[in-house]
């Protein structure tokens, strides 16, 4: 669905998404990197279990939530990619220690 603009080079940053390597570009948000690789959905909603993905890309819709380096419910659109980052789909409600 999305493709990068021609002639926009940049340093490659490597992260893993759902255990698979994902090559991104420095400066990408996690959401942009996921969309660039065709991952339109990155979470399942709390109430209905419906797949959702990045929408507003500016931090207000909370539809791009993912788990990053073990931290649940991170906003993918508000988080820059970092070398070695581990990103996982956010499925349903986050856990809390009792």
């Amino acid at each position, binding site marked *: 669905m999305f493709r990068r603009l021609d002639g926009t080079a940049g340093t490659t940053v490597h992260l893993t998404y759902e255990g698979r390597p994902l090559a991104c570009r420095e400066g990408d948000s996690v959401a942009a990197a996921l969309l660039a690789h065709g991952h339109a959905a990155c979470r399942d909603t*709390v*109430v209905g279990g419906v797949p959702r993905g990045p929408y507003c890309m500016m931090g207000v819709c*909370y539809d791009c939530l993912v788990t990053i380096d073990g931290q649940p*419910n991170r906003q993918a659109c508000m988080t820059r990619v970092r070398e070695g980052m581990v990103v996982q789909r956010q499925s349903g*409600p*986050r*856990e*809390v*220690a*009792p």
Partner: protein
Amino acid sequence: MAHAPTRPARARPAVYDALVVGGGLVGCALAYGMHPALADIAVLDEGDIAWRASRGNFGLVWVQSKGLGMPAYARWTLHSAGLWPTLAARLLEETGIDVQLRQPGGLFPMLSDAETQARVKFMQALHGQPDMPSYPWKLLDHKEAAELVPGLGPAVQHAIWSPVDGAVNPLKLFRALHVALARRGVHYLPRCPATTITQGDDGVFRVTTPQGVLSGRRLVLAAGLNNRALGEQVGLDVPVRPQRGQIIALERTRRLLDIPLNTLRQMDEGSWLVADSQEEAGFEDRLVGLPVLATLAERAVLTLPALRDVRIVRAWSALRIMSADGFPIYQESPTHPGAFVATCHSGVTLAAAHALELAPMLAAGALQPTVSAFTNRRFHVQKA
């Protein structure tokens, strides 16, 4: 929030049976309850920008702690809590919207000996009043409270428990009322604030709005903080003032807390609300303040340490509508018969009593002795 039709299906009558000024929880609950006894009802509302307590509140259906100084208010509140399952069932049947009423009891946590002593003294004074309705309440120690709230922080030394308390989802309640009004053909008129109100010799009220003049045989002022100025136009003294409250919303988590606390609750869909601040700050509802928010957050984490890692997603402030003594005002105008005012700061808790008890009185045109304690004449007692 509700998608009421912009062009009402029902034709606009020359004279409505009733005009309800105010489209918040109080006005909507009253309009809902006056229909179908009155067929032609219009609800006049402001636009998006309004002092809208109905969209900023915490959503408790709360009984314990109410009525010191007026046991009739405790009775009215308890009565409403008892009527709430009927209202919730009717709204579900009519609109398909489950307002998520849960009445599992409620807890008031105390985080120090001083808080416990002050609270117990308060509860004893409250329940020691003559004519105070009787309902169970109990001082729990930490261990007893922790049995009700798994993961309760050790800082919570005591809590007051009462089985009569509960909560709803206030936004779903607001939406359900709006949908029910639309389905019944009650005219909801947004961006239609009342500016001037007059009563003709024929007894008909004429309300001027930016969208023209509306006429009605009965007038119900349910305009919250605007009731003071609107009331003056029809001979009603409505001493209300704004009291600011701030709320913090946390991200959704798996279910952890089934029992509402007066300061903390987990909503039906997993998010959390932290609240119970009171500030006298005039009409300023655009600001939130770190000192209050930090205190709210600290107390929430002390109450339930598991929330330490849970993120805040937003915070807001809203204005309670406080009368001079904090109790509701229901009054017919002595100079403009057929004009009533209804105002309170507990539009959620009292929604059931408003819809099922007060509204039929308004539809019939006479307040009954069951609500006579809430007359505004109580503010005019001559000082000895």
